[in-house]
């Protein structure tokens, strides 16, 4: 019989440009996660999923899960493996843990993810990322780092729907403000609208604060069957209610539409259907704000507003604290940074805190929440819905 699954603990390392090794970061995150749930010890975990995309390239380490298990004193009995879907590796780990626990294959799984990207030499980051796209066909066109693609998306969205550079900048201003009180994030600095609009160009119209940074860091969560969750914690239970993960193309030449993300709509529909909720039921969301234009399109394709209205949605404050759906309440990628394998897990932690009533920027009475990642060349989308009710 399928069981209910809960997210019961979470913690992360400091994120930023770190003077540390990959295994240092995973230890920091693992400890922070265990410290979040005193009744559960590392010996109680029967499964481990490790999410990391650049472990081979940047740390020359394959077979990563047993390395992390050894360092965290975990002795998995039911699953011990690595998961990779670049920017959505962490969310993929959470979906897999959800399925394994639901099916009775494991009871208590840690999902830990992160990257040590600024290594061995800092300049290599910009070369390493050529592996993120279709290496033979898009990488060879110099499309490794994503800003050109998102600039192209932004230009088309602006032309088609009248979205403005000010509206893009407002996403950055909001998320930097939300991240101010997040001690683990890469930035705790406010950015004004004027600063964002006058920042140096990266790929016009995208400027410095329209782009998330490259980040070293890790994050961990623990998922458990409802029965085990009740045993280990007295906090309000946070259920995984449903998920979707979709891809329609990988190479840029096969993208069905640049301004409507069809794979996101499919993933969202799957997640909403399985969770039995509507977009209007979502009280708080963490979406993939790798660029400001991404968050605007995500409002639309997740169904928080009509197509083309994303610019107005941010401008009218609907995604801010106190709005209809506060988005990226912990600062998002724009403020926390983006160590690929860690991002979906950071989102899960913030949603868990929101639903437990323990978030720093608490959305009062939040009961249903959502996370979203895009990965690669806008090539795959991952949506998970969490809730206090099942």
């Amino acid at each position: 019989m399928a069981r209910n699954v809960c997210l019961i603990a979470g913690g992360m390392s400091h994120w930023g440009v770190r003077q540390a090794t990959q295994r240092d970061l995973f230890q920091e995150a693992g400890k922070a996660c265990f410290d979040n749930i005193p009744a559960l010890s590392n010996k109680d975990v029967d499964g481990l999923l490790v999410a990391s995309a650049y472990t081979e390239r940047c740390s020359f380490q394959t077979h990563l899960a047993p390395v992390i298990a050894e360092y965290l004193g975990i002795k998995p009995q039911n699953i011990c493996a690595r998961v990779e879907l670049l920017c959505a590796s962490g969310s993929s780990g959470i979906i897999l843990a959800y399925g394994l626990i639901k099916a009775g294959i494991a009871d208590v799984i840690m999902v830990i993810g992160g990257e040590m990207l600024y290594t061995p030499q800092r300049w290599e980051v910009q070369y390493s990322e050529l592996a993120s796209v279709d290496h033979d066909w898009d990488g060879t066109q110099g499309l490794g780092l994503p800003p050109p693609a998102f600039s192209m998306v932004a230009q088309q969205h602006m032309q088609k729907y009248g979205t403005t550079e000010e509206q893009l900048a407002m996403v950055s201003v909001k998320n930097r403000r939300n991240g101010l009180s997040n001690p683990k994030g890469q930035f705790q600095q406010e950015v004004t609208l004027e600063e964002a609009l006058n920042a140096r160009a990266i790929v016009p119209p995208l400027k410095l604060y329209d782009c998330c940074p490259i980040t070293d860091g890790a994050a961990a969560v623990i998922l458990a069957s409802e029965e085990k969750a009740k045993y280990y914690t007295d906090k309000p239970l946070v259920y995984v209610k449903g998920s979707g993960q979709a891809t329609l193309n990988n190479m840029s030449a096969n993208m069905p539409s640049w301004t409507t993300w069809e794979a996101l709509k499919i993933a969202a529909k799957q997640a909403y259907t399985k969770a039995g909720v509507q977009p209007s039921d979502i009280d708080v969301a963490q979406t993939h704000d790798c660029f400001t234009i991404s968050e605007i399109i995500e409002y639309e394709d997740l169904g928080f507003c009509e197509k083309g209205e994303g610019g107005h949605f941010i401008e009218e404050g609907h995604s801010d604290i106190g709005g209809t759906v506060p988005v990226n309440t912990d600062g998002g990628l724009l403020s926390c940074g983006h160590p690929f394998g860690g991002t979906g897990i950071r989102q899960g932690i913030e949603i868990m805190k929101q639903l437990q009533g323990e978030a720093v920027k608490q959305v009062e009475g939040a009961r249903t929440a959502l996370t979203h990642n895009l990965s690669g060349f806008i090539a795959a989308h991952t949506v998970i819905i969490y809730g206090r009710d099942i």
Partner: protein
Amino acid sequence: MEGISILDGKYAATMDMYPLQSKEFNMIYKFYDYLREGRFTTTKCKDCGTRSFPPRIICEECLSENLDWVDLPTGGTVKVVTEEVRGVPIGFDDPLIHALIDLDGELTYFARVINCQAGELKPGDRVKLAVFPIDPLPVDGRKGEIIKQERVFFAFEKED
């Protein structure tokens, strides 16, 4: 004892984004052979008629191996231009210019535009295929000899 002396004078081929292009290393070598002739090609299924891109060895629609090589247009019209001024990958010049190019209705391709200064390229401009040599890749021969694999690649450039 020094650190990684084994790498002295060697070329870390896996860090190169350009594939090996000869028959010995790549089953779609004809793409590169045709590219040397100035042709931009891909595969089309003889059974179901699906035209794929990138070229491949099976049809993704019907899984047939019965494929033909067909020509794509070598010219197109620029729809969107992007100019990357920061964070350009190693091996590419700054600013790195890309364009979403409509290859006369056959394919919409986001590709690099070379021989072009910042501010020069505009939506509506015509561009054409540009083929150029890239660094040859040393590969091990049978008796320990090093063979240089000649390679080419492509981008687009403004029509005259």
